[in-house]
């Protein structure tokens, strides 16, 4: 049984401008299915606005999903009541993108890290203190910095504090929503390696959301490529990066720089912008920008099918 199983999840937002205009539905996540195995990392890549972050928030029920099912350890999450949901929150946590916005500027680091323990009534004051001290030691922040405020730390340190907060309750799943994209490259690798070490030690599973292909390649076991609220390709990381099948994935990967000046590569340049999720194209969502699109693509919505061994793609031409 996978740790997390998402089936046909939809997250639609209703946007209404002015009281006379008609309601418009933004289909941020439109029928996503995926699995995260215990101790593994599923990377979710896609360009800005494709619904990656909405997917993470909807899995954690920070926004209530419109439709579909989310199963955590075989248990349906979407219809839990408030009390059951609170219990489950110990098991699944989130790390945010912006380390400057994700820590309360008026709380000390000790207060920030103690909050999850207090909310779930873990231990007494002394035990909590011990847990917090172990946590900061683990993420490389000194004990005597516990009474400092977030603005006294660098971006990388803040992000590690954000990770420590997510880990305080010993969760099984972490949704990491672009956890390194706000950091300098040198600090990125520090934080990524910390996440990998913690994964080993605590047997964590990650749902790692990012637009950065190299970061996802580095950390993931499996990769899902998202486009306009749908998954267009899914498979093991080596297969996706070495043998991309979907034209969108191929275009994305062709933009990855190769650290070898002699090697020639073909760059696939996509024309146009990401279509609006309010009014998505008919048929295959990618047909407006796909270099191989045919007439059929405008009419048929391609299903995500297993094309070769454990390698799924949503394209009628493969």
């Amino acid at each position: 049984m996978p740790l997390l199983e998402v089936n046909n999840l939809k997250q639609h937002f209703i946007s209404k401008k002015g009281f006379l205009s008609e309601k418009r539905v933004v289909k941020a996540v439109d029928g996503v299915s995926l699995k995260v195995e215990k101790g593994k990392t599923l990377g979710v890549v896609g360009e800005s606005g494709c619904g990656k972050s909405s997917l993470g928030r909807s899995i954690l029920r920070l926004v209530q999903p419109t439709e579909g099912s989310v199963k955590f350890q075989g248990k349906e999450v979407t219809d839990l009541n408030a009390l059951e949901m609170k219990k489950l929150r110990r098991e699944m946590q989130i790390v945010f993108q912006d380390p400057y916005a994700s820590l309360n500027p008026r709380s000390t680091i000790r207060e920030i890290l103690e909050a999850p323990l207090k909310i779930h009534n873990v231990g007494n004051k002394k035990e909590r203190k011990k847990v917090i001290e172990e946590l900061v030691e683990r993420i490389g922040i000194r004990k005597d910095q516990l009474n400092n405020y977030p603005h006294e730390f660098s971006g990388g340190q803040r992000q590690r504090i954000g990770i420590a907060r997510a880990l305080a309750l010993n969760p099984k799943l972490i949704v990491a929503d672009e956890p390194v994209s706000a950091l300098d490259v040198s600090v990125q690798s520090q934080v990524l390696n910390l996440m990998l070490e913690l994964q080993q030690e605590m047997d964590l599973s990650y749902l790692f959301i990012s637009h950065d292909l190299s970061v996802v390649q580095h950390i993931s076991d499996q990769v899902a490529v998202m486009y306009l609220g749908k998954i267009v390709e899914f498979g093991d990381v080596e297969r996706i990066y070495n043998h991309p099948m979907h034209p969108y994935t191929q275009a994305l990967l062709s933009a990855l720089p190769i650290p070898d000046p002699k090697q020639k590569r073909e760059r696939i340049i996509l024309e146009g912008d990401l279509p609006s999720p309010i009014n998505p194209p008919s048929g295959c969502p990618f047909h407006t920008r796909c270099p191989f699109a045919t007439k059929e693509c405008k009419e048929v919505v391609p299903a995500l099918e297993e094309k070769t061994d454990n390698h799924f793609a949503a394209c009628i031409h493969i």
Partner: protein
Amino acid sequence: MVRRMINSPLTILGLVLVLLIIITAIFAPVIATHNPTEVNLLSKLEGPSGEHFFGTDEVGRDIFSRIVYGTRISLKIGLLVVLISFPIGTILGAIAGYIGGRIDQIIMRATDIFLSFPGIILAMSIAAALGPSIENVLLALAATWWPWYTRIVRSSVLSLKNSEFIEASRALGANPFRILFKEVIPNAIAPASIQASLDLGFVILAAAGLSFIGLGAQPPSPEWGAMLSSSREIIRDAWWAATFPGIAILITVLGFNLMGDGLRDVLDPKQR
């Protein structure tokens, strides 16, 4: 922050005035030269002199001592009104902004109703309905003041409530009560607290106004507004009886305003 405050002479002036007022209120018995309510008909309506710095009123009470003791009353009213209306306004504003929906509608329409009356008129009618006394002036002013804080806090909460740190708290399973008091309010309170420091002066002015028209402090009490009121009839013969209480009100309101403005400039660089 301290340096920026020192760089502004007006802020310093405000701070000095406020400090002076507070010291006067605390050490009133030491500073006052006479008993503020002692009637001495032999020395009524005397002009300012070495014995009576600010002269005496129509029943011979020492105006200087009355003003000194009046500081206590005015400061008490100002502080208590703000201390009552500020928490009420803050909590209602935070609830309205954070929860939104129907609750927001109800709270904000209530503030609209309160704000649609001129403050002093509303306070007058409440004070008149409750009967003239200092306590009722307090209640009346608190009832007219809270909607301002509600509006200010609500608008800061609206800009805060989608921050990632609030979302992080929800992801941890914190209940709305905890989020409101530990995460939202501490971050939304700064602009409203600056407003509160400015309001101290206005509250004192409004309380003096209510006492002036007879709805607040009653005659023997050395309240500045009441003193002004009773000096109306003798103003042609004894200019000092009206002038010095007026100056006391002016200095107090000015002091709190300058201090509040200075605080705003220091704490909120966007306003400059």
